[in-house]
């Protein structure tokens, strides 16, 4: 490096011979401040230079006339024609460029880096794109606006996100979330999204390897707002109110009440209920069955029974749910902040309040405060203290659709009535036969009826959580180019949950009744005391992180060198305690002790004896990490950048020898700013950059161990503590490693018409934790053990394209996101298990070599038997109805493979139209190339657990039906294996492909003149329609392929205002 400079120095005098000198100063058009480091070149000669700290430069050129090209990151290039010699120094004003690509300042959580010098793969989401949605949590706001991020919301209340697809089979799948330089362990909902300035997504090894073993799934770096130096105090306020439409109860294809009743009659005639009638456990029977029994026993007339049954046929409980339990949801959001700064200090203060009322009146409240400072002390030291606190309260109110059932093993019968015609709550059949329930009070038990519409009033369920985050950083400039940094963060989360079952609640009454003891003299005792039952839990998480690092940054002629090295130490402590109190009375604060050690014969089932549930549990976890890391980048002439990064992590993984606790990971990258080359004189392209990186990220599976470990648990048969084997001896265990190759191209046209990024990546997952078959003789019951057995490869494309089709007073901008991700297991997949092990609707994982991690497999479908309506499979090439064989003896080769369970291609097209202050944003997202299995009728479950499906109406009933339907005929007795075959057959697989409108946003910003008069800087109104619906979906049944639950989310409409003072 030294020599390059020396050579240049030697040549300089030759270059300067016979030349004229241009003197000029580069300033920013907005604030007139000098711009240091702007790059100046000429079109006529080879001369080029950089502006100095005060913005000035001088450049020698030959000839009489020339054109200067001045470029600076974040500003539009400026072309200045000059006639020589100049009479006075030039003043060149650069205007800011608002295209994301240019103003990129990448924050990895360890350091910031200008976009120009980046080699790795980053996606930056600025404030604007994050604010299009008013969702109360920041992660939800990424949906549809961020490249490479896929939301998987198929399972209710279990959202998971992935960056560039899954990189692991059984390891942790969630990306690492970094909040202001530190890994964030708290609940994502504690962060007020209005405080977030930007999110940077780190996708490849060069970007993420600085995060070491936790980076394999990608990293989301959240940066909160800060005040700016030399900016006047500014107050911003914004508020949004959004309404979500209540879920469609009729989305769920339920069996019609009339059909269900016909089935019950058929079962009754077949004596299906005779066993249950005399059941010592008093198993529940539906009202229709009770009527049929009463008519049979002559307690009511047949005509009476018929009349009552016919009335029930008209009843559909979904109407009751819709009418009495569900409402539109309302979310309110208010945020206020104050920011500004002098020449030495900056400040940012904010307060936020959110109040949400859910579809069943569940309430959620968040109150958040944040303070963030930067103070310069003397000339060399800067300190950055920050403090934030949030309080969240949530409360459950009315029960939802899935929580009202007729018993642990029963669904709710479709003609249940929750209220009478006047709207008064009615009892439903619950847990026991109605006759048993009715005679309970007479036998000295508590009332045993369950009224879903009023029962919740006797229950209270609330959850309160707090989060406190304190951080302090100090940066000391040791010299112009070397600085030392120390950072520390303290994070404490504590939460309390209380679930109070009041003495009148069904739960508490049931507990008292079940344990009621009847002695020989006929007197009753109550081991579970009458009164309420209170479940409480408390938990706390405390993390401490310290980091020390040295940063070096030096520009020398055409060389830019930056480096960083540091060490980090981190501890995470989690403690929890949950306990139950019986006989609790909140008015007098009294409780009653119970005998946990005795077994009691249940009043409700003399064949069963149980102890009173003991729910006292303590947990304590302590995770520790140490890391050392280094990162360097060298740029030559603003054209070529080489980056290197390495990190070694160690943690207190349990049962592993110390030398296996640490793992070194590294990455290397190259980038080439082609547009800086002299030969590149394209008028079309203004910016063109090539990037190439390779490296490793790791993944951690803290649940595994190389040694046999045991877990101590409560209460064996003698009520003594005991220990269970948690991990089997597994001496060869190591960490998962993901090697990532990334090649990228960034471009922008000269006129700013279009810009974008194209990236290709290939991820090689090595030593992934997978299941390997092990001889059960080893004592491993399941016959499989988790080991580093699997490898996988994922390849993909991430494309971002931004087109400013019209850029005048009327503006039309199109943003396109296009992602492809396809993965396959390359080794370690277990292809010899029996077929049913691979069939899981794409929700579970059984890795198969050559297939994606989550795949849809089914039994091959041979159509319905034209004579009987029996479903048929295919066995050795021939049609078969031997379900036992089809289900239990099929191998992988006998199954049909449909494809991946998650989208291979996905992205969005966002169009923004704006005219003056009015702007309309329409975002359409697409997800393609995947499959799902839809639910259908299972006769066994219909008979035994009252779970029906609308497909029942489509069932085969007579020869010929097989040509219009694939729903098997109803048979009695039900054949569970036949159901199992049908519900997992290819007849029920649908393509998931769909196109939906994600967001429609209408914003109006009032014009400046008007506002200045009333001292408001900006004022805008915003209308946001989220998730209004599908434009197209591949399945013709109206199913939402991205949601497997009962009631998918529907559209919500938000109205927001925003003002800056």
């Amino acid at each position: 490096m030294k020599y390059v400079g020396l050579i240049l120095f030697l040549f300089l005098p030759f270059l300067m011979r016979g030349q004229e000198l241009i003197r000029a100063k580069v300033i920013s058009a907005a604030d007139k401040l000098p711009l240091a480091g702007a790059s100046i070149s000429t079109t006529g000669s080879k001369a080029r230079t950089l502006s100095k700290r005060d913005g000035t430069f001088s450049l020698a050129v030959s000839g009489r006339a020339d054109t200067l090209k001045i470029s600076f990151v974040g500003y539009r290039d400026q072309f200045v024609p000059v006639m020589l010699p100049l009479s006075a120094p030039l003043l060149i004003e650069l205007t800011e460029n608002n295209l994301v690509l240019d103003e990129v300042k990448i924050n990895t959580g360890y350091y910031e880096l200008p976009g120009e010098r980046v080699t790795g793969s980053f996606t930056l989401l600025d404030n604007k794109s994050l604010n299009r949605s008013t969702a109360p949590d920041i992660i939800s706001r990424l949906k549809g606006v961020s490249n490479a991020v896929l939301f998987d919301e198929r399972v209710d209340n279990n959202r998971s996100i992935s960056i560039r697809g899954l990189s692991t089979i059984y390891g942790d799948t969630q990306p690492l979330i970094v909040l202001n330089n530190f890994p964030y362990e708290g609940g994502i909902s504690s962060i007020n999204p209005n405080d977030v300035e930007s999110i940077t997504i780190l996708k490849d090894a060069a970007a993420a390897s600085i995060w070491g073993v936790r980076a394999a799934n990608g990293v989301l770096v959240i940066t909160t707002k800060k005040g700016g130096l030399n900016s006047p105090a500014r107050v911003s306020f914004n508020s949004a109110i959004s309404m979500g439409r209540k879920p469609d109860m009729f989305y769920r294809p339920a069996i019609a009440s009339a059909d269900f009743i016909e089935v019950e009659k058929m079962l009754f005639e077949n004596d299906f209920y005779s066993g249950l009638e005399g059941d010592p456990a008093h198993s529940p029977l539906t009202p229709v069955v009770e009527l049929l029994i009463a008519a049979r026993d002559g307690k009511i007339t047949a005509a009476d029974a018929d009349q009552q049954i016919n009335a029930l046929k008209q009843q559909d409980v979904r109407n009751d749910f819709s009418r009495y339990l569900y409402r539109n949801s309302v979310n309110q959001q208010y945020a206020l902040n104050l920011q500004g700064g002098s020449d030495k200090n900056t400040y940012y203060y904010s307060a936020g309040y959110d109040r949400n009322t859910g579809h069943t009146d569940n309430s959620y409240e968040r109150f958040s405060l944040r303070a963030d400072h930067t103070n310069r002390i003397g000339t060399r030291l800067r300190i950055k203290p920050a403090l934030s606190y949030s309080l969240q309260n949530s409360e459950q109110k009315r029960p939802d659709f899935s929580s009202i059932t007729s018993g642990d093993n029963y669904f709710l019968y479709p003609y249940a009535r929750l209220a009478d015609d006047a709207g008064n709550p009615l009892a439903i059949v619950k847990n026991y036969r109605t006759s048993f329930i009715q005679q309970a009070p007479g036998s000295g038990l508590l009332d045993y009826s369950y009224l879903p519409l009023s029962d919740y009033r006797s229950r209270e369920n609330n959850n309160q959580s707090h989060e406190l985050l304190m951080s302090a950083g100090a940066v000391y400039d040791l010299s112009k180019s070397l600085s030392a940094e120390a950072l520390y963060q303290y994070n404490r989360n504590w939460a309390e949950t209380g679930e109070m079952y009041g003495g009148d609640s069904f739960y508490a009454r049931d507990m008292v009744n079940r344990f009621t003891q009847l002695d020989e003299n006929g007197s009753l005792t109550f081991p579970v005391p009458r009164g309420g039952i209170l479940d409480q839990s408390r938990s706390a998480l405390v993390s401490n992180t310290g980091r020390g690092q040295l940063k070096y940054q030096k520009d020398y002629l055409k060389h830019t060198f930056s480096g960083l090295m540091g060490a980090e130490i981190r501890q995470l402590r989690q403690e929890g305690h949950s306990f139950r109190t019986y006989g609790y009375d909140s008015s007098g604060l009294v409780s009653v002790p119970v005998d946990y050690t005795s077994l009691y014969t249940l009043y409700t089932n003399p064949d069963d004896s149980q102890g009173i549930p003991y729910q006292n549990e303590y947990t304590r976890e302590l995770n520790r990490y140490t890391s050392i890391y280094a990162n360097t980048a060298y740029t030559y002439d603003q054209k070529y950048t080489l980056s290197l990064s390495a990190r070694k992590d160690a943690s207190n993984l349990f049962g592993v020898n110390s030398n296996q606790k640490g793992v070194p990971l590294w990455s290397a990258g190259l980038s080439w700013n082609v547009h800086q080359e002299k030969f590149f004189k394209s008028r079309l392209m203004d910016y063109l950059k090539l990037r190439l990186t390779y490296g490793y990220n790791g993944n951690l599976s803290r649940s595994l161990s190389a040694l046999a470990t045991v877990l101590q648990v409560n209460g064996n048969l003698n009520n003594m503590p005991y220990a269970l084997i948690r991990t089997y001896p597994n001496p060869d265990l190591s960490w998962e490693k993901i090697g990532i190759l990334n090649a990228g191209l960034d471009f922008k046209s000269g006129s700013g018409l279009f810009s974008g990024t194209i990236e290709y990546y290939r991820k090689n997952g090595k030593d992934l934790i997978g299941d390997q078959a092990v001889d059960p003789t080893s004592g491993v019951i399941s016959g499989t053990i988790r080991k580093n057995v699997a490898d996988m490869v994922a390849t993909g494309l991430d494309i971002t394209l931004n087109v400013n089709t019209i850029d005048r007073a009327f503006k039309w901008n199109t943003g396109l996101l296009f992602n492809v991700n396809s993965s396959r297991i390359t080794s370690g997949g277990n292809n010899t298990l029996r077929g049913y092990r691979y069939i899981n609707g794409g929700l579970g994982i059984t890795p198969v070599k050559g297939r994606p991690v989550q795949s849809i497999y089914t039994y091959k479908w041979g159509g319905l038997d034209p004579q009987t309506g029996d479903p048929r499979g295919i066995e050795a090439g021939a049609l078969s109805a031997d379900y036992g064989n089809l289900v239990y003896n099929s191998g992988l080769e006998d199954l049909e493979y449909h494809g991946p369970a998650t989208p291979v291609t996905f992205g969005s097209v966002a169009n923004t139209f704006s005219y003056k202050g009015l702007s309309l944003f329409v975002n359409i997202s697409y997800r393609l190339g995947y499959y799902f299995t839809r639910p259908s009728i299972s006769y066994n479950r219909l008979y035994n657990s009252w779970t029906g499906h609308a497909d029942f109406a489509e069932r085969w009933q007579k020869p010929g039906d097989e040509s219009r339907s694939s729903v098997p005929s109803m048979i009695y007795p039900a054949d569970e294996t036949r159901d199992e075959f049908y519900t997992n057959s290819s007849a029920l697989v649908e393509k998931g492909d769909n196109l939906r409108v994600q967001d429609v946003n209408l914003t109006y910003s009032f014009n400046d003149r008007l506002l200045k008069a009333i001292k408001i800087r900006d004022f805008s109104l915003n209308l946001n329609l989220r998730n209004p619906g599908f434009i197209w979906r591949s399945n013709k049944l109206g199913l939402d392929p991205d949601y497997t639950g009962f009631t998918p989310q529907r559209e919500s409409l938000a109205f927001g205002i925003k003002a800056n003072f």
Partner: protein
Amino acid sequence: MTIMKMIKMILALFLISAISSCKEFLDVKPDAKLAVPSDKLLYLQLMLEDHGTMNMFNPAASDLAVDDVFIPGDKWTALLQAQRTSANAYIWDKDVFNDIDLTDWATSYKAILYSNLILEGLDKLKEESGQVLWKELKGAALFHRAHANFNLLQTFSLAYSEATADNTPGLPLKLSSDINEKLPRASVRQCYDHVLADLEESKTLLPKTVEFKTRVSMTAAAALLARVYLQMQQYELALRNAEEAISASPVLIDYNTLNADAAFPLNRFNEEVIFHSIITGLSGTTPNFGRVSTDLYEMYRPDDLRRTVYYRQSAGEVFFKGSYNGSTSRFSGLATDELYLIAAECYARSNNVTAALNRLNKLLVNRWKTGTFIPLNTPDASEVLSLILDERRKELAFRNRRWSDLKRLNLEPNRQKTIIRNLNGSVYTLEPGDKRYAMPIPRKVIEASGIEQN
């Protein structure tokens, strides 16, 4: 803050993490509930307290293959859907154990893994071998390994006979916790010898009494030895151990004191129980499917209290309710009544009729309605033996002994029995000495280990 302070601080941080990364900082446990078992005797003891492994899941399929059980045709059809293992065990079909993970094979080998881990842990803690606890733990681990191996032999190997023991395939003899170890099947003799060796050693280490009946005492080791020797037809040694155990635990429950109307008249951990364990709850062993064969039920005389204490009748069918576990789960542990029967049988086989009848009558007087029992008395040893074997079947019904008894008695030409099942129009027969007295090893095991199938 001065420059030097700053640099010192950073260096200190570097040092802390560099040093501590391999030292104490990372040596703390991530979860206070976790432990490496070989670190402390306490952890080994806690493993023994895991009743779910050590006192449960004894082999159950053989309980469905015996002549005491009856499953009606429609129930059997339903059972075939519910649990293939159960239904197929009932008709001695080759396809058993392939639809469930909790196979008789795996659950017993899990107890063996625990035992081996405990024995290896004790080896690592040798410096504490002088302690009473160390010895007791070793005794218990050896007992459990022997118990599991003996149970496995009953299900998966043919009967022990002196003449064929060397050539009959036994089990893979698992003596280490290495999960990757590949073992062939040892001979039946090698296996029984190992069971005996483990038990004889454990008897010298175990305490005389234990606080809980899930724990192992010296009496339990003697009782199990009596059971094993009886199975090996070594009557002298069986007798010696049975008498030894009886002298330590002589009490029999007078069934007249029980409430025969109760759902489960006998309690878990009752006075006769020496060591508690139960079998796997296969669907076929629950009252939903399994009934009692008329063949067995009709053996009980009207004044025999076991008729009402053990069984309930409902709609003409007979159900078992006499589990020494006080629930529908069936007891398979060691109890005093079995010892009386072992002793009686051994006396009879050595022609000591008086002693044999003495032991038998002592038991039966506690089983009959007060004042109705007339002590048995006959001079013919063979007849006495027949009486004892009948009483053995009646007393130990659904106690996991019948399958073993059928196996060993079938070795005696005059005591052989052919079991015939008429089911849904088909007839299934199990002849004495049928190869199916050794049940098929689960397919998963054969695939993973390559050992010889039965």
